[in-house]
C-alpha cells in the first residue's frame, strides 16, 4: 500500500472512530453502509469497466433476506447477515451469467432491466409486505453475547463490516486478479489474445461486487430494522452510480467520500422533496461535463499520489 493510501486509511479509521462524538451515530452507520455499497459498485465499474445500472437489486435482496431471516425465522444477526449476503451472491451469479454476455451500454441496460424485474417481483411477493416493507426487524444478540440493541455495539459491528469489506476490495484490486481485470477494462481483445478467460474474470468480478453490495444491504437492514422497496428501486441504482462518480471512478477512497457527500446532502435537503432529485441530476451533469475524475480523483491528481 503506498504511503498516501496508508495515511488516507488511517484518517478514515480515525474519523469513523471519533465522529460519533459529534455526529448522530445512525447517520454515520448509514453512511458506512452506503460507502461499502459504493465501493462494491466501484469494483465493477472502476476496475472492470462494467457499468451496472441495477445494483439496487443486490442491496435490496440482501436487505429482504436478512430482515426475513432475523424476524420470521429468528436467525442470530451474524447468520441473518450471512444469509442476506448469500442471497445477493446467488442473485449475482444468475444475473451475472446473463448480463456479461453484452458489454458497455447494453450491459447497463440489461442490469437495469433485470433489477426492474426483481423490483416488480418484490412489489408483488407477500413476504416483503409491499409498500410497508419488513418493519421492526430485531437486531438480536451478536454471537449470542453482544446485544445489538445497544447503539454502540451496533456501531462497532457496522464499522467492522465496513472496514473488512473495504480492505477485501483493496486486496482484490491489487491482486493479480485485479490486474487482469484492469487489463480487460483497457483492452478486452488483447486480454483474450493473451489467453485469459475474460468471461470468467468478469463474472467473478460481478459476483464479488454483488456479494459485497449484499453485505452492505444486509447490514443496513439490521441498522434501520427495516427492509423496504426503496432499496430495490432503480433510483437507488442511480444513486450508487452518482456516489461513485462524484467520489471518483476507479479510485480506492472515492466511493466512500462520494457516499458521504450524497448521504449528507440528502439529510439536509430532505425537506425540499423533489428538489433532491433535481440536485442529484445536476451533480450528474456537472460531473460528466467538467469533473470526470471526481473529488478524490482530482485530489489525487493534484497531490500526484494514488488515492
Amino acid at each position, binding site marked *: 500500500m503506498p504511503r498516501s493510501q496508508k495515511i488516507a486509511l488511517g484518517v478514515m479509521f480515525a474519523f469513523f472512530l471519533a465522529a460519533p462524538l459529534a455526529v448522530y451515530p445512525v447517520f454515520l452507520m448509514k453512511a458506512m453502509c452506503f460507502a461499502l455499497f459504493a465501493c462494491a459498485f466501484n469494483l465493477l465499474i472502476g476496475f472492470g469497466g462494467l*457499468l451496472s445500472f441495477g445494483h439496487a437489486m443486490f442491496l435490496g435482496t440482501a436487505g429482504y433476506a436478512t430482515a426475513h431471516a432475523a424476524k420470521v425465522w429468528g436467525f442470530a444477526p451474524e447468520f441473518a447477515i450471512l444469509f442476506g449476503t448469500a442471497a445477493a451472491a446467488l442473485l449475482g451469479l444468475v444475473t451475472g451469467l*446473463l*448480463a456479461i*454476455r*453484452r458489454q*458497455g*451500454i*447494453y450491459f*447497463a*441496460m*440489461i442490469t*437495469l*432491466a*433485470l433489477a*426492474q*424485474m426483481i423490483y*416488480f*417481483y418484490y*412489489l*408483488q411477493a407477500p413476504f416483503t409486505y409491499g409498500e410497508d416493507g419488513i418493519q421492526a426487524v430485531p437486531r438480536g444478540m451478536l454471537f449470542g453475547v453482544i446485544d445489538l440493541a445497544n447503539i454502540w455495539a451496533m456501531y462497532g459491528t457496522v464499522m467492522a463490516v465496513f472496514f473488512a469489506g473495504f480492505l477485501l476490495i483493496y486486496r482484490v484490486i491489487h491482486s493479480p486478479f485485479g490486474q487482469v481485470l484492469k487489463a480487460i477494462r483497457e483492452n478486452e481483445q488483447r486480454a483474450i489474445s493473451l489467453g485469459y478467460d475474460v468471461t470468467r474474470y468478469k463474472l467473478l468480478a460481478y459476483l464479488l461486487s454483488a456479494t459485497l453490495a449484499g453485505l452492505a444491504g444486509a447490514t443496513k437492514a439490521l441498522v434501520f430494522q427495516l427492509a423496504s422497496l426503496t432499496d430495490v428501486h*432503480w433510483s437507488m441504482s*442511480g444513486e450508487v*452510480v452518482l456516489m461513485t*462518480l462524484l467520489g471518483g471512478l476507479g479510485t480506492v477512497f472515492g466511493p466512500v467520500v462520494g457516499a458521504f457527500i450524497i448521504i449528507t446532502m440528502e439529510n439536509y435537503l430532505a425537506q425540499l*422533496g*423533489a*428538489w*433532491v*432529485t*433535481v440536485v*442529484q*441530476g*445536476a*451533480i*450528474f*451533469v456537472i*460531473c*460528466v*461535463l467538467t469533473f*470526470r475524475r471526481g473529488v478524490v480523483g482530482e485530489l489525487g491528481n493534484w497531490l500526484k499520489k494514488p488515492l
Partner: protein
Amino acid sequence: MRAPFRTTAMDSIFGVPVQALFGQLLIGLINGSFYALLSLGLAVIFGLLNIINFTHGAQYMMGAFVAYLLASKAGLGYWWSLALVPLVVGFTGVVIERLMLSKLYRLDHLYGLLLTFGLALIIQGLFRNEYGTSGLPYAMPAELAGGRNLGFMFLPNYRAWVIVASLGVCIGTWFVIEKTKLGSYLRAATENPALVQAFGINVPRMITLTYGFGVALAAFAGVMAAPIYQVSPQMGADLIIVVFAVVVIGGMGSIMGSIVTGFALGLIEGLTKVFYPEASNTVIFIIMAIVLMFKPAGLFGSQK
C-alpha cells in the same frame, strides 16, 4: 333445452371470454405502439450518436406535458399539439445536443448514458415540483370520441387512431432511413462519419438534427399517450426501462427490428395479462433474459 347462462365455444377461448381477450390484446397493441415509437427513437439516436438516450422517458413525459400546457394555457387542441409539440420538445433536444452531448463524443459512451440519466432526473424533478405526482387529465379530441362495435369487441376510435398513427410514423421513419437519399447519408455516417464528412456533408449538423428527431419521436408518443394515460411527471420513468428491455430483445441494428419487436412485445404483454396476470409486469424482462441466453446480440441485432 340449453342452460341460459352456459357460454358457447364462440364466447370463450381457453376459458377466457373473447371480449376480455381482445380487450387485452388491444391494450397490448396500444402499449406496443408506444414501445415501438420509443425504441425506434432510441435506435435512431444510438445509430448515429452511439449514445443511449436515458432522457427519452422524460422527453416522452415532456411531450405529454407540453400538450397539456398548450391546451390549458393557450387553448390549442390535440391536433395542434400533435404538430407543434414534437417541434418544441425536439428543439430542446437540439439545445441539449449542442450544449452537452456534443462534448462527449470522444469519451467512453458510458458518459453519454450518465449525462442523459442526470438530465432525466432534473427534468422529472422539476415537473414533480411544479405539478406533484398525481396525474392530470387530458381531453380526447372530439373527432375521435366514441367507438365502434366490431361484433366480437368494442373498439374506441381514439385507440384505433393511436395504433394506425404510430404504425404510420414508424413506417415513415423506416422509409426515410432505408429508402431515401437523406437516409443513405445517415446510414453512411453511422458506418464512417469521417468519410462522409470528407464528401462535404455536414455530419455534426446531421448528428444534431438526428438527436432532435429522436427526441421529437418521443414527444410525439407523449402527445398520443396524454388522452389515454394521465399526464404525470413519472409517466416516462418506468416506461423507459421496459423500452430498454425491448431494445435489448430486438437489438439496435435494424430500424424495422425495433418496430416489429415493440409491437410484438406489447401483444405478448397483453396476452400475459389475460392468461397469467401475475407475470404481466415482468414478462418482457423474462423474454429479455431468454433472448440473452440464446441470441445475445438480440433478435435483429449484430454483435458489435
